[in-house]
C-alpha cells in the first residue's frame, strides 16, 4: 500500500520536469527539423503507395535504365522500375525493422542494466565481462555471424540487432542505477522489505527514464545505420522489397557505366533519414540535460 502511494507521489512530482522537457523539445530547432524529416519518411512508409506515380515493383524492360525525365523523375533501374516510386515506398521496411530492433534493445538492455547495477558483485562482474566481449567486435560483424547461422529474415534481423544493442543500453542504465541505488528512497524501499524486483522496476526504473530515452533515440539512429548496412550486404531486408540499401546493392555494380540515378536517390534517402533521427536524438539529449 505504502509503495503505491510513494510512486503516485513521485509521479506528481515528476510531471513538472517532464512537461518542461516537452516544452524545451518544442523550442529546440534541431529536434523539430529532425522530427520533420523522420515524420516525412514515416508518412511515405504509411501512405507512399497512394502518391507514388508508378507501382514500385512493376518492371518495364523496354524503359530500363532510362535517365531522369518528365515521365520518370528519378529515372528507372535495370529492369525498368520507377526509381522515384521505389524511393518513396522504400522507407517502409527499414522503418519497421529498425524501431522494433531498438525497442527490443531498450527492453532487454534496461532489464540487464537494472540487474547488474542493482546487484553489483558477482552478477555484475560476470554480465559486464560478457557484455564487454560482445562489444569488442563491431555490431555489423556480430550480426553477420548470427544471421548466417540463423538464416535471413526480418525477424532475425530485428532480434540480432536488438540483442547486439542491448549491452550498450545496459551500460548506460547500469551507471544510472549505480547512482540511484545510493539514494534514500531505495534504502527506504529496502527497509520496507520490498522485493528486489519491486525496488528495481517500480522504485528505480521511473527515475532512470531520462537516460534511457536519450539512449533509445540515439540507438534508433544506429539501428537504421545497421539495418541499411546489412541490407546493402544482402543479409538484411530481402528482395523484392524496394528497400534503399537493397536497391543500392543491386544497382551499384553499374555506376561505372554512368547510371548514377539508380543509386544516388536511395543513398540520399538513407542519409536524410539517418541525419533526421540523429538531429532528433540530439534534441532529446539537449532537452534532458539543460
Amino acid at each position, binding site marked *: 500500500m505504502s509503495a503505491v502511494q510513494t510512486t503516485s507521489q513521485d509521479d506528481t512530482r515528476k510531471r513538472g520536469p517532464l512537461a518542461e522537457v516537452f516544452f524545451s523539445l518544442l523550442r529546440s530547432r534541431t529536434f523539430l527539423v529532425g522530427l520533420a524529416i523522420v515524420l516525412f519518411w514515416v508518412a511515405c512508409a504509411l501512405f507512399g503507395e497512394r502518391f507514388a506515380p508508378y507501382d514500385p515493383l512493376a518492371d518495364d524492360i523496354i524503359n530500363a535504365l532510362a535517365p531522369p525525365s518528365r515521365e520518370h523523375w528519378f529515372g528507372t533501374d535495370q529492369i525498368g522500375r520507377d526509381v522515384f516510386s521505389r524511393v518513396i515506398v522504400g522507407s517502409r521496411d527499414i522503418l519497421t525493422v529498425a524501431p522494433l530492433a531498438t525497442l527490443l534493445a531498450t527492453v532487454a538492455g534496461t532489464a540487464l542494466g537494472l540487474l547488474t547495477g542493482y546487484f553489483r558483485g558477482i552478477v555484475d562482474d560476470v554480465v559486464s565481462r560478457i557484455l564487454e*566481449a560482445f562489444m569488442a567486435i563491431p555490431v555489423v560483424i556480430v550480426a553477420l555471424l548470427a544471421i548466417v547461422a540463423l538464416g535471413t529474415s526480418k525477424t532475425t534481423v530485428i532480434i540480432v540487432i536488438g540483442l547486439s544493442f542491448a549491452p550498450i543500453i545496459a551500460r548506460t542504465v547500469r551507471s544510472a542505477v549505480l547512482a540511484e541505488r545510493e539514494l534514500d528512497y531505495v534504502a527506504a524501499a529496502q527497509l520496507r522489505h520490498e522485493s528486489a524486483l519491486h525496488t528495481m522496476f517500480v522504485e528505480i526504473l521511473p527515475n532512470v527514464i531520462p537516460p534511457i530515452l536519450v539512449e533509445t533515440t540515439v540507438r534508433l539512429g544506429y539501428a537504421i545505420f545497421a539495418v541499411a548496412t546489412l541490407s546493402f550486404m544482402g543479409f538484411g531486408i530481402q528482395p523484392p522489397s524496394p528497400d534503399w540499401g537493397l536497391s543500392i546493392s543491386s544497382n551499384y555494380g553499374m555506376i561505372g557505366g554512368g547510371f548514377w540515378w539508380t543509386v544516388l536517390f536511395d543513398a540520399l534517402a538513407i542519409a536524410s533519414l539517418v541525419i533526421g533521427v540523429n538531429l532528433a536524438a540530439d534534441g532529446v539529449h539537449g532537452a534532458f540535460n539543460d
Partner: protein
Amino acid sequence: MQGVLAILSFFARRVSLSLITLFLLSIMVFLGGQVLPGNVGRAILGPFADQRAVDALNHTLGVDRPLLVQYWSWISNFVQGDMGTSYIFRSPVAPFVIDALGNSMKLAAVAFVLVVPIGILGGVIAALNLNRPLDRIISLGGLSVTVLPEFVTGIILILIFGVWLRWLPISAAWPRNAGFFTQLYYLILPSLPLFLVLFGYIARMARSGMIEALDSDYTRTAVLKGLPWRTVIWRHVLRNALLPTITVIATQTGYLIGGLVVIETLFRYQGIGSLIFTAARGKDFPMLESGILTIGIVYAVATLAADFLYSVLNPRIRLGSDQ
C-alpha cells in the same frame, strides 16, 4: 621504481581483462559458427544429399564430436596458428586471413594517416573558435558525416570523384605489380568514407578536450603569468587536451573494422572485411570464425596499446582505479 611497478601491475590487470574478453568472444564465435547452424554437413551438401554422405562429411569435419572437444581442438589449433580448413577453398584458412589482414591494414593506415592529424586539427580549430560559425560548421558537419553508413558516403563519393569528375578509380583492385604510389592512388577513394566516419569522432573529442583544457586553472595561470598565447596552447593546453583523444582513436579501430567490411565489399578490395563477407555468403564457417576472432584480437591489441600509451602519458591514471 614504484612508478614502473605501478605501470606493470596496471598493465598486467589490463592484459588479463583482455584475455578474458577474448576467451568469451571465442565462445560466442564458436557458438555462432559451430553450434547455431545445426547440421554443418547438411548445410554444405544441401537438403537433397544422402544422409550417409552428410554423416561422412560431418565425421571428416569433426563436427560430430562433443562440443567441448570441438571447442578445445578449434581454439588450441587457432592459438598455434592453425585456423582450420576452408569449406569452400579446401585449403588452410590462415594464409587467406593473413593476406587479407595485411591488405586491410594498408587501407586502414591510409585512412588513419589522413584522419588523425586532420581530425585533431579540426577539433582544435573548432574549440579555438568556440560557438562561432567555423565551430558550427566543423561540429555539425563532423557529426552529420559520422552518423552516415559507410556505403552511403562511399556511393556518393564514388559518384562525385569516380563517375562525374573521373579523378579516382572506382575500384580498389590495382593492376598487378603496382608500385607504392599507384596502390596509394587506388586506396584514396576507399579510405575517404572511413575518414569521414572517424573525422567526426576524433574532432569532437579533440574539441571537448580543448574546451576543458582552455577553461582550466593551469591555463589561466599560464596566461596570467604572461606566457605568449602560442606557448600556452602548445605547452599547456594541447598536451592535456589530446590525452582522451588517444583513447578514442584506439577504440575507433573496432568501428573502423566494421566499416572495412562494407567498404571492401563496395570497392572490391581483398581485405579481412571482404573475406568475412565472402565467407558469410558461402557459409564458410572456419573462415568466418577465424576472420572474426582475428578482428577481436586486433581490437584487443589496439585497446591495450591505447591504454598503455595513455598511462605512460598521463601519470594520474596509473595510480588510480582502472575504471
